[in-house]
C-alpha cells in the first residue's frame, strides 16, 4: 500500500495551536460596530441589505396597490404616507419616487452591496484560506460608507418634496433640472450624494476583494483550485472597479449641470414657458456614461449569484460541477462582453442603425456563455444524489429564473424588435426575472447555505421550504403576465392605466399581479422570522453540515479572529471532489492530500505533475497484479 511517498501536510498539528482572539481586547464597539473582521463585516452587510430589501419591497407593494386599484382611495395610505397620499390615493409624483427608490435600493443597495458585500467578505478569506482581507481597515470603511449612503437614500423620504423621481437611471434633463418636478429637487441631490458614497464604498470593497484573491491564497490554492464562488466574486469585483468610476464621471458632470449651470447634458430647455440658458448639451452623453456602468452593473448583480449557485448545486447534487473550466471561461466571457453591449439600452435614442447592429451582435453573443452556464447547471443536476435543502431549492430557482428571463433577453437585444418592446412591461418582466428574481434567489441560497458558517446555528428547513415555494410561485405569478402586457405595448412607469382607453383592459391583470406580489411579500415574513429567530435560538450547527469540500468548513464553528486556530490548512485538490468513485465518503475535502486517497485517485488528478502520475500508475499496476495473485 504505502509505496507512495506520503506528502507532508501541516493540517491540525497540535503544537501550532494558538488563538488569535485572545490577543485583542475587544469592546462592543470594536467587535460589533467598527469591526475590521471580515466575518462581522459580512454580517453587517447582510443585515443592512435585508433591511433595505424589506423597505424596497414595501415600496413596491405601495405602487402595486396604485396600479391594481387606480380609482380607489385607501385611507390607510394617507395615515402611513401623509402628504404623499392625499385622500388615500398616491400622489403622482410620489409614485415616480417610489418606482425610482425601489429600483435604486434593489439594484445597488441589495443586489450589489448586500450580495457581493456579504458573500465576498465572508467567503473570500474563508474559501481561500486567508486570515482576513488585504486591508481590513478599508473593508470597514467600505461598510460604513455603504451604511451612510443607505441612511442618506432613506433620509430623502423626509425631504419636503419627497425622494428622487426620475427613475433609477436618472436620465437628464429630468434629473438635471431641480425645478423639473418635485422628485428632481432636494431628493435628487440626496440621491446623487448617496450614490457617490455608495460608489466609494464599492470601490474600497472591490479593490480589497481583487487584491485578496490575487495575493492571499493559502498554500496549494492556485487559481484553478478556487471554488467557482471565488471566481465569480473576483470577476464581479473587477467589473465594479472598472465600471463604477465611469458612473462617477457621469454623475460629476450631472452635478455640475444641476448646481453650477453648465450644459453638458442640457440643451434648449423650456420650463414654464421660459427659455433657460442651457445650450448645446447632449442628454445622450449621459446615457452613454450611465450604461457603460449600467450594463456591467447587471452582471455585478448576477455573477455572484451564479457563483453561489454553482457551489450550492454541486454540493447538494453530490457531484462535481459539470464543466468547471467552461464555467470559469464563461464568467470571463461575460465579464469582457459586458463592457461592449451598453448600446442595447439606447437602440431608440436615434443611434446609427449600423452601430445598433454592432451592439445587437455583441449582446446576442452574451447568450452563449450564459447558456453554457445554464446547461452546466442542468448537467450537474443530472442523475445527482440531489439533497433538496432550502439552499438547493433556491439555487435551482435561480436556474429557472435565469432561463425564463434570459430567453426574453434574446428578443430585447434585437435592435428591430426593441423599437416595439422598449420601455414596456416586457422589459420590466425581463429584468425582474433574469437579474431581480434570479439574483435574489442566489442571495437567499447563499444565506441558507452559509448561515451555519455565519452564525453557528442552522435555519429551520420547513420554514425554508414554505418560503421557497411561496416566493418561487409568487415571483412567476408577478412577472410572467407582464410579458403579455409588454407585448400589447403597455408602457412602464405609468401612474394609471385607466386613463388610456386601449390599456384599460389590463387593469384586471394588474390586480392579479398585485395580489401575487402581496403573497410573495408575505412569504418573506417566513424568511425574516426564520433568519432572526435562528440567529439566537436555531439548532447548533455541526462543523460541516452539508458535507462540503471547501475549506471554510474546516474552521471552528465558534468564530475566532484569524479564522483558523492553528496553521492555515494547505489545499491539495480542486473543490469539487464529490462522489468520487473508489472513495468511502461522498466528498473529499480540499485539504485531503492525494496520498490519503490512493483508491480514488485518477490519472486526471496528476495532469500537471508527471512524477506523481508515474507513481499513481505504478500503484495501479501493483494493485492489479496483487488482484491477479488473489485470483
Amino acid at each position: 500500500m504505502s509505496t507512495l511517498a506520503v506528502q507532508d501536510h501541516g493540517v491540525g498539528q497540535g503544537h501550532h495551536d494558538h488563538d488569535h482572539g485572545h490577543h485583542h481586547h475587544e469592546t462592543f464597539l470594536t467587535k460589533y460596530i467598527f469591526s475590521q473582521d471580515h466575518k462581522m463585516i459580512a454580517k453587517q452587510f447582510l443585515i443592512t441589505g435585508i433591511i433595505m430589501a424589506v423597505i424596497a419591497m414595501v415600496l413596491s407593494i405601495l405602487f402595486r396597490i396604485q396600479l391594481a386599484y387606480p380609482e380607489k382611495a385607501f385611507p390607510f395610505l394617507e395615515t402611513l404616507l401623509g402628504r404623499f397620499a392625499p385622500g388615500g390615493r398616491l400622489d403622482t409624483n410620489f409614485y415616480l419616487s417610489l418606482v425610482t427608490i425601489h429600483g435604486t435600493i434593489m439594484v445597488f443597495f441589495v443586489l450589489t452591496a448586500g450580495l457581493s458585500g456579504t458573500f465576498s467578505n465572508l467567503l473570500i478569506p474563508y474559501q481561500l484560506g486567508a486570515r482576513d482581507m488585504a486591508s481590513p481597515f478599508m473593508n470597514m470603511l467600505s461598510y460604513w460608507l455603504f451604511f451612510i449612503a443607505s441612511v442618506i437614500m432613506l433620509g430623502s423620504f423626509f425631504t419636503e418634496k419627497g425622494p428622487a423621481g426620475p427613475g433609477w437611471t436618472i436620465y437628464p434633463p429630468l434629473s438635471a433640472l431641480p425645478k423639473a418636478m418635485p422628485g428632481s429637487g432636494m431628493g435628487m441631490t440626496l440621491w446623487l450624494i448617496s450614490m457617490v458614497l455608495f460608489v466609494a464604498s464599492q470601490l474600497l470593497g472591490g479593490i480589497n476583494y481583487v487584491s485578496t484573491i490575487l495575493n492571499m491564497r493559502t498554500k496549494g490554492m492556485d487559481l484553478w483550485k478556487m471554488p467557482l464562488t471565488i471566481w465569480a466574486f473576483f470577476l464581479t469585483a473587477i467589473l465594479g472597479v472598472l465600471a463604477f468610476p465611469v458612473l462617477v464621471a457621469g454623475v460629476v458632470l450631472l452635478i455640475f449641470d444641476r448646481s453650477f449651470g453648465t450644459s453638458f447634458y442640457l440643451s434648449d430647455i423650456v420650463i414654464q414657458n421660459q427659455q433657460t440658458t442651457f445650450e448645446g448639451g447632449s442628454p445622450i452623453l449621459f446615457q452613454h456614461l450611465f450604461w457603460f456602468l449600467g450594463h456591467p452593473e447587471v452582471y455585478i448583480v448576477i455573477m455572484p449569484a451564479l457563483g453561489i449557485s454553482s457551489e450550492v448545486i454541486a454540493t447538494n447534487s453530490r457531484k462535481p460541477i459539470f464543466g468547471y473550466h467552461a464555467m470559469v471561461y464563461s464568467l470571463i466571457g461575460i465579464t469582457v462582453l459586458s463592457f461592449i453591449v451598453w448600446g442595447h439600452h439606447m437602440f431608440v435614442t436615434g443611434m446609427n442603425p449600423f452601430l445598433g447592429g454592432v451592439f445587437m451582435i455583441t449582446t446576442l453573443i452574451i447568450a452563449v456563455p450564459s447558456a453554457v452556464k445554464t446547461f452546466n447547471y442542468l448537467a450537474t443536476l443530472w442523475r445527482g444524489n440531489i439533497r433538496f435543502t432550502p439552499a438547493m431549492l433556491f439555487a435551482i430557482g435561480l436556474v429557472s429564473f435565469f432561463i425564463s428571463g434570459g430567453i426574453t433577453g434574446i428578443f430585447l437585444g434585437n435592435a428591430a424588435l426593441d423599437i416595439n418592446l422598449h420601455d414596456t412591461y416586457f422589459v420590466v418582466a425581463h429584468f425582474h426575472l433574469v437579474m431581480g428574481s434570479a439574483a435574489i434567489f442566489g442571495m437567499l441560497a447563499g444565506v441558507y447555505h452559509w448561515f451555519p458558517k455565519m452564525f453557528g446555528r442552522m435555519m429551520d428547513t420547513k420554514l425554508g421550504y414554505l418560503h421557497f415555494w411561496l416566493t418561487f410561485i409568487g415571483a412567476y405569478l408577478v412577472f410572467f403576465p407582464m410579458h403579455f402586457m409588454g407585448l400589447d405595448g403597455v408602457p412602464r412607469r405609468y401612474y394609471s392605466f385607466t386613463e388610456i382607453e386601449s390599456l384599460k383592459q389590463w387593469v384586471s391583470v394588474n390586480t392579479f399581479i398585485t395580489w401575487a406580489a402581496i403573497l410573495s411579500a408575505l412569504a418573506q415574513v417566513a424568511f425574516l422570522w426564520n433568519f432572526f429567530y435562528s440567529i439566537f435560538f436555531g439548532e447548533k450547527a455541526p462543523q460541516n453540515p452539508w458535507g462540503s469540500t471547501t475549506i471554510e468548513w474546516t474552521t471552528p464553528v465558534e468564530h475566532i479572529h484569524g479564522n483558523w486556530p492553528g496553521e492555515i490548512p494547505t489545499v491539495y485538490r480542486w473543490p469539487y471532489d464529490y462522489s468520487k468513485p473508489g472513495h468511502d465518503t461522498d466528498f473529499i475535502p480540499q485539504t485531503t492530500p492525494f496520498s490519503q486517497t490512493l483508491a480514488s485517485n485518477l490519472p486526471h488528478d496528476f495532469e500537471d505533475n508527471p512524477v506523481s502520475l508515474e507513481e499513481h500508475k505504478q500503484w495501479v499496476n501493483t494493485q492489479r497484479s496483487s488482484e491477479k495473485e488473489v485470483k
Partner: protein
Amino acid sequence: MKAQLQDKDKLNLAPKRFNMWIFIFTSFMFFAALTSGFIVYIGGKGHALRTVMPQAFVYSTAVIVLSSVTMYLASKAAKGLQFAKQRMFLWATFLLGVLFLVLQVYAWYVLTFKMGVFFVNPNASQSFIYVFSGMHLLHILGGLVLILISLVSAYRKTPQVINLFRMEMSSIFWHFVDIIWIYLYVFLLLNQN
C-alpha cells in the same frame, strides 16, 4: 510561534501595495470616462474646443514632471538609507506639487478672466477643461497627503520597511497623477481646434 506568525501577517505589505495599483486602474477609468465623454460630446453636435490652452499649463506640466524626478530621487535616497536626502527631496516634491496646484488655479484665472472661456458655457467642451483639471487637482491633493504621510515617517523613527512602503505608495501614486496630467494636457492640445 504565535508572535512570529502575527508579525508575518503584519509585514505582509504586498497586498496593500497591490491595492494601490488597483486604485490607479479605477482612477484611470474615471479619466478615461471623462475624456470619452468629451469625444462623444464634440462628435455629437459639431461643437469644438476652439481654445488655445493658456501658457500656464506649459509651466505646470514642467513643474509636475520635475516633481516626478524629485520623487524618484527621494525613493532612491530612502532605499540607500540616506534619510536627510530623502526628506529634502520629499519636501521638494511636496513644494513642487503645491506650485503645480497654484499654477493650475492661475490657469483657470487666465482662462476665465483673460480669455473669457467660462466654466458655465453653452459650449460644454470648454467646460470640460475645468472638469479635467479640477478632477485632476483632487488627485493632486490626495497625492500631497500621501507625501505628507511619507514625510512624517521619514522624520519619525519608523522601521525602514514601513518607511519604504509609504515611500513606494506615494511615489506610485505621484507618478500616476503626473502621467494622467500629461495625458489630459496632450488630449486637450490634440483637440484644441
